[in-house]
């Protein structure tokens, strides 16, 4: 390095002597380009911060190129210095750009982290709300079932319409029975996925076939009452069991009355009903 500077120094002094009788040196296009490249980025704060070393190298090489021009050095030598100056300026400019990108990355990462936190808390909130809503809905369902006096059995919720809601040996519902069916219709309007199976039963008095048919007709009467209130027929199954499945003894009047009944089995939330 030292040697080069010494050489340069001597070359300068010699060329000054020579230049005494020379006209002004010609401009070199590569030097002009290098100068333009350097001037363009010289005051860029990003480059000053992160590409400073390269910027200084660009400046030094440019100064060398210019002094080589002044000294009338060979074109190859001038253009070599100009080449280095241009390259250093380009590298500085890349480094400045990268520093800017790095800042963008940092701030974007912060933003992403914030968003992730926000999302997690809003997800937790939503989950909590959903859980709450589900609880409320379950409570409401229970309340409505209780209002209908439905009982939880191993077949699901079962609503029993007692014998007194029908006329003796008749399939017509009394108005007290209509009221119960009305509540069931309201319930089914609200819970659209629920279905019901209406099952008719009798005591063991009389002909079995008659009892079978009476139980079926009573069940159908309930079905009609429900469809009259807007419940779709496809959501209602009907079955007459006759004397089967007594819930009490047929030997006493009270027991027989208990056996004469219509049971309405309410499906689960997916519309499934357990069969007998």
């Amino acid at each position, binding site marked *: 390095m030292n040697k080069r500077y010494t050489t340069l120094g001597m070359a300068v002094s010699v060329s000054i002597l*020579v230049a005494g009788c020379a*006209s002004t040196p010609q401009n070199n296009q590569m030097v002009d380009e290098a100068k333009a490249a350097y001037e363009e980025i010289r005051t860029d704060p990003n480059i000053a911060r992160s590409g400073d070393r390269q910027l200084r190298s660009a400046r030094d090489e440019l100064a060398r190129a210019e002094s080589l021009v002044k000294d009338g050095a*060979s074109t*190859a030598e001038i253009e070599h210095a100009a080449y280095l100056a241009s390259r250093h300026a380009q590298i500085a400019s890349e480094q400045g750009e990268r520093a800017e990108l790095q800042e963008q990355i940092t701030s974007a990462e912060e933003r*992403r982290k914030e*968003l992730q936190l926000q999302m997690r808390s809003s997800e937790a909130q939503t989950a909590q709300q959903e859980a709450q809503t589900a609880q409320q809905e379950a409570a409401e369902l229970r309340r409505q079932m209780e209002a209908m006096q439905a009982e939880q059995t191993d077949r699901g919720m079962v609503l029993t319409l007692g014998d007194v809601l029908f006329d003796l040996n008749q399939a017509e519902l009394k108005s007290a029975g209509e009221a119960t069916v009305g509540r069931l219709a309201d319930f089914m309007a609200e819970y659209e996925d629920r279905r019901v199976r209406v099952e008719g039963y009798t005591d063991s008095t009389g002909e079995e076939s008659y009892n079978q048919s009476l139980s079926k007709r009573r069940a159908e009467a309930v079905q009609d009452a429900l469809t009259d209130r807007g419940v779709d027929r496809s959501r209602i199954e009907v079955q007459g069991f006759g004397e089967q499945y007594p819930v009490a003894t047929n030997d006493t009047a009270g027991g027989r009355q208990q056996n004469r009944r219509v049971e309405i089995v309410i499906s689960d939330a997916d519309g499934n009903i357990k069969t007998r």
Partner: protein
Amino acid sequence: MNKHTSMLGAAGIAGIAIAIAGCAGSVEPPTGQKQTAESSIQQAVSSDARNFEPILLNQAQNKLADAEELMDVEMTEANYQRASQLLEQASVDAQLAGARADTAKAKQAVNEINRSIESLRQRMNDSQ
């Protein structure tokens, strides 16, 4: 007149250079520049310039190879000077290739993170 002057100047410089080279005793090969060029190329490669700036990296590698050849051929001042220039250029070419590769990677990273922010936003909007 001009040509005459520069020729004179060149002769002067050459004369002094020869004089100095004479004092030094022997011609020094540009070993330092060669090392710098090699490590610049290596760094560019590890910045994945092979992928992002293959042409410029190749240019640097060719200049290094040309310089090595010149240094092998004959130990003359002219050869060494030319080799030294090639090595200096190889260094800055490689450094620029590496710097451009780094910038390109940073740009990709910015795009990637912005995309993931966008998709987070979308998911948040959808869930609301």
